[in-house]
């Protein structure tokens, strides 16, 4: 079970009225390398991974949901006061037709989130390499989004999220090293 804390992991401030940025940020909400995909991937893989690394997948998977909330907050702040006309100018007319001003799990190009974005191979080495790749792709995506805005406040939150991807990738690499070792020691000293 989970315990919910009613606050964000890191503050989100949006200082510029720029609904177009919401269209780009949604990639990290419902995209292939987004936070939803990450959370669901790790929290599902953990059942068939050796005990030593279950906790890591639980912790990181949980943190990804905290990141998902931050992205949702950014998107909401960027779009909540936009008129239909402003959404149209931001390239969000199609989104508005289907979802109004609600958020939805799709990528920047409007493709809905799909479980085909994630995998659970049941092989600990294969699964962890997928996780490392996912973190590095998410880091690159954050870099692309940071490049597309000059809002320093939103850049600040995105830089925090980018750094977390870097740390997570290292933790997964460490997990691979742990799994390369023999699990049940039968050495005699």
């Amino acid at each position, binding site marked *: 079970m989970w315990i919910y804390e009613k606050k964000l992991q890191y503050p989100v401030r949006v200082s510029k009225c720029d609904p177009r940025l919401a269209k780009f940020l949604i990639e990290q909400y419902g995209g292939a390398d987004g936070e939803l995909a990450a959370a669901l991937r790790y929290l599902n893989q953990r059942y068939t991974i050796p*005990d030593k690394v279950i906790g890591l997948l639980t912790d990181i998977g949980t943190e990804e949901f905290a990141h998902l909330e931050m992205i949702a907050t950014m998107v909401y702040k960027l779009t909540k006061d936009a008129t239909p006309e402003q959404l149209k100018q931001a390239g969000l007319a199609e989104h508005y037709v289907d979802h109004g001003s609600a958020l939805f799990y799709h990528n920047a190009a409007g493709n809905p989130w799909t479980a085909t974005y994630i995998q659970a191979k049941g092989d600990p*080495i294969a699964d962890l390499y997928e996780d490392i790749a996912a973190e590095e792709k998410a880091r690159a995506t954050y870099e692309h989004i940071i490049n597309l805005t000059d809002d320093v406040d939103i850049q600040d939150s995105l830089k925090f999220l980018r750094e977390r991807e870097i740390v997570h990738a290292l933790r997964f690499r460490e997990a691979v090293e742990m*799994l390369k070792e023999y*699990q049940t020691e039968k050495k005699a000293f």
Partner: protein
Amino acid sequence: MDSQWRPFDTYHSPFDPCPPKPKSYIVPPNQFIVFQAKGMKQFAPQEALKRGTLWPDLYSPYEAMPQGGARS
């Protein structure tokens, strides 16, 4: 069991419906060779073609699991 295999224990509750099954995964030698060194020992050409690699240090044998059973 081959040295590339890693058996591991999982928690088995007295209330679990099925008897516990041994679990393991394979760690192929590529995981330990980050960058291949020059002059590594080689298989004879015919042997290399059959095994899929020229280098014994990179060879990972894989046998099918016994039917209906787990690797022990």
